[in-house]
């Protein structure tokens, strides 16, 4: 192992004793330290685009790093968050060539390590996650970023403060994709000689937080970046500590005993107990889907009737009761408040119809296997919810087998696509619906077939593909809205997903936590949070 010190037990005990003697008691946590219990099973990686889903972005990605385009998380969440300038101050499509996007970069930005942020850095970063021949190429980042680089063709430096992206097809939604691609410091990468294991222990970005220390699998600690370019978003805490806690009861216990100040996704059963102990519970609707993506290559769900049967078989009211009301029933891909909701066909609870459809399709009992996770970002309470879904589907004539795994493992299965897991009929990965591409297109477009994108089941419909291409080429927002509405309605008509629930983003925090504004987004701004002593 190149230069990695392996501290043994004796060394550690000696260090502990020595430190205890020399430095004196290190008592309770310092005031102004925000400790968060995440649903992730492990710490998200710090090497750029994080893993562990959007929770990784929420707590690590957007804190250590920025992207060219950021999400506007201010504004008390009255409407869904939209994008705003980040490391790029402006962008527009080239009038001469609508496959070319010009991004003007922000000036005066510095990396955590002190090097200046330049256009070369952006070019370097794109090669980092997409160019196999580049010395800095990181295969793991390639896998993470692939879903957002579906239409990305190339990048070139125009001048020190401008870059131009080229896309494979005209893509009006390209800036949205750029919001998910985080920029890491080439300076620091060169310092560690592109050794990503080393880099992970001393990452450097442009974000509002700087990396301080980590204990692998246990905690990640950040401190404010006092030189952050956005003065309005300087972190108000002294320290941010992230702890992975995949079990809901562990999170609840940790919050009640004061080990953490903030937990994600408390178990709905524990909400009463948390409230009576004085904890604050915040919820907000946000662009989130808890549904199943289906296998369109092999298995019963290739038949539209079976897909519709599954949707008719679900009693979403009951699932909502299971969660003590902490969800919104999902009858279509988006929530009714979405601008392009339209008038989709709704599959209201009708088990008799479900059974009839299954009989017609000749699939009775219909054997299916669902891949699910044990916890995770946006997965809500996956085990009890899946058990309930299973029993409802079983009652309507299905025979469901649940295959559960760790969240990160499920994401990997999701990225692998239906070719890597042909025996799985449906995969339960909660999806963000923040932008039109991620809300609709990536589920059904052939251009997003996994592993290139998030179309796990390889759904392909020539009419939908044509519609999507016209959406991507439509740079006029009003016209695009009409097309998106059409797409949304088509997706419901074809029952491309099993629609189950929209999450309400619950989180619980101790009464000491102040200043938090819950945005209508998967991401949250932690910078204004303070802790009263």
């Amino acid at each position: 192992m190149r230069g990695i010190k392996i501290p043994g037990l004796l060394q550690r005990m000696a260090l502990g004793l020595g430190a205890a003697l020399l430095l004196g008691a290190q008592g309770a946590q310092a005031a102004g330290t925000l400790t968060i219990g995440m649903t992730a099973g492990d710490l998200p990686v710090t090497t750029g685009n994080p893993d562990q889903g959007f929770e990784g972005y929420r707590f690590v990605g957007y804190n250590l790093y920025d992207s060219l385009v950021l999400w506007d998380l201010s504004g008390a969440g009255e409407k869904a968050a939209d994008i705003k300038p980040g490391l790029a101050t402006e962008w527009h499509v080239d009038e001469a060539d609508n496959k070319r996007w010009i991004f003007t970069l922000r000036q005066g930005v510095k990396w955590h390590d002190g090097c200046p942020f330049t256009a070369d850095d952006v070019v370097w970063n794109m090669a980092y996650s997409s160019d196999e021949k580049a010395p800095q190429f990181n295969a793991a980042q390639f896998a993470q970023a692939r879903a957002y680089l579906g239409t990305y063709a190339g990048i070139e430096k125009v001048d020190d403060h401008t870059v131009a992206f080229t896309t494979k097809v005209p893509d009006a939604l390209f800036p949205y994709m750029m919001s998910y691609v985080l920029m890491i410091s080439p300076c620091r990468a060169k310092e560690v000689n592109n050794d990503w294991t080393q880099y992970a222990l001393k990452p450097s970005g442009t974000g509002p937080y700087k990396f301080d220390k980590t204990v692998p699998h246990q905690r990640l600690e950040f401190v404010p970046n006092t030189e952050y370019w956005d003065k309005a978003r300087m972190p108000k805490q002294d320290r941010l500590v992230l702890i992975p806690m995949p079990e809901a009861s562990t999170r609840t216990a940790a919050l009640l005993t004061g080990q953490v100040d903030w937990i994600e996704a408390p178990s709905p059963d524990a909400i009463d107990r948390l409230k009576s102990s004085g904890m604050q519970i915040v919820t907000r609707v946000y662009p989130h889907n808890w549904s199943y993506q289906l296998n369109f290559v092999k298995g019963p769900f290739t038949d539209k009737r079976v897909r519709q049967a599954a949707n008719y078989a679900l009693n979403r009211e009951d699932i909502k009761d299971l969660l003590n009301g902490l969800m919104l029933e999902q009858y279509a891909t988006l929530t009714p408040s979405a601008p392009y909701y339209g008038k989709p066909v709704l599959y209201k609870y009708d088990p008799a119809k479900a059974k009839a459809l299954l009989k017609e399709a000749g699939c009775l009992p219909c054997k299916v296997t669902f891949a699910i996770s044990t916890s995770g970002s946006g997965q809500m309470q996956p085990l009890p919810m899946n058990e309930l879904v299973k029993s409802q589907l079983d009652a309507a004539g299905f025979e469901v087998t649940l295959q559960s795994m760790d969240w990160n493992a499920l994401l990997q299965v999701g990225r692998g696509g239906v070719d890597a897991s042909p025996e799985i009929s449906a995969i339960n990965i909660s999806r963000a619906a923040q932008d039109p591409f991620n809300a609709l297109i990536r589920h059904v477009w052939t251009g997003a077939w996994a592993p290139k994108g998030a179309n796990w089941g390889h759904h392909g419909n020539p009419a939908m593909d044509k519609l999507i291409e016209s959406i991507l080429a439509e740079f006029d927002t009003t016209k695009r809205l009409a097309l998106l509405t059409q797409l949304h309605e088509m997706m419901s008509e074809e029952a491309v997903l099993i629609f189950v629930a929209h999450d309400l983003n619950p989180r619980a925090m101790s009464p000491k936590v102040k200043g938090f504004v819950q945005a209508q987004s998967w991401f949250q701004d932690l910078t204004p949070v303070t802790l009263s002593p």
Partner: protein
Amino acid sequence: MADIAELHSPLEAFEEQAAPATRVRGYWQSVAYRLRHDPATLIFGAAVLLIVLAALCAPWIAPFDPYKESIVGRLKPFGWRDHLLGTDELGRDMLSRILYGGRVSLLMGVVPVLIASLTGGLLGIIGGFVGGRVNTAIMRTMDVFYAFPSVLLAVAIAGAMGGGIGNGMLALTLVFIPPMCRVAETATTQVRALDYIEAARATGASTIKIIRYHVLGNVLGPVFIYASSLVSVSILLASGLSFLGLGVRPPVPDWGLMLSTLRQSIYVVPFVCALPGVAIFITSICFNLVSDGLRAAMDVRM
């Protein structure tokens, strides 16, 4: 050694002392006698019988369907609407699930011990009887598996194979074969050395006959005692495997799995959530005490 005084004749007493592993006429009667006068073992033996019967008769005595969910009746405490022991996180009746869960838990407790006794016992008898290189080979192989702490070995095998009730039982069987083999081998070696075996051979008795009449009788006792003490260990290990997700899959009721899923709900009905553990504990302790009593009755060397 007060037990010796309870034997039927001084001759038997002398023979017992001289050849501790030998069986004499009246041995089983003396075992039965000792058991009859051991109220504790009898009581716990009855308890074991009760538990096994309850599990076997679960389909007839369970008040509710263990798979029937009720969203409105989730996590209810003892006595809520005919649910004597409350309901679980999906509204299923706890009493029924505990009864049905007993079937899986007892199955995973008894079957591995049974198979391990047969296989390990056979291997041990062969090794002990044949001796020499064969014995060394068998015992050294067993020593390798002995080198793993039992929990670790069970988890390793079940974990690598991907869990499930079959793999779990296989893992537990493999964990118990080495100790059973060792017990059988020790007993066989002791018997083999006895004079009357030589005498039997001298009169031309075939090996099989010798094994059947002399060896088996002496080996079965220790093997049975040891196996009975392993059942409680097996139940605990099996529940541990299920707790880690390496046993049956939901929604099949199983005590270890129930403990794991109910852990999330300890804030709502802590006593209901602790129930499967109580079931495991009661079953395990009853088997343990019965096994202790059997040992006291059967192993005169104590």
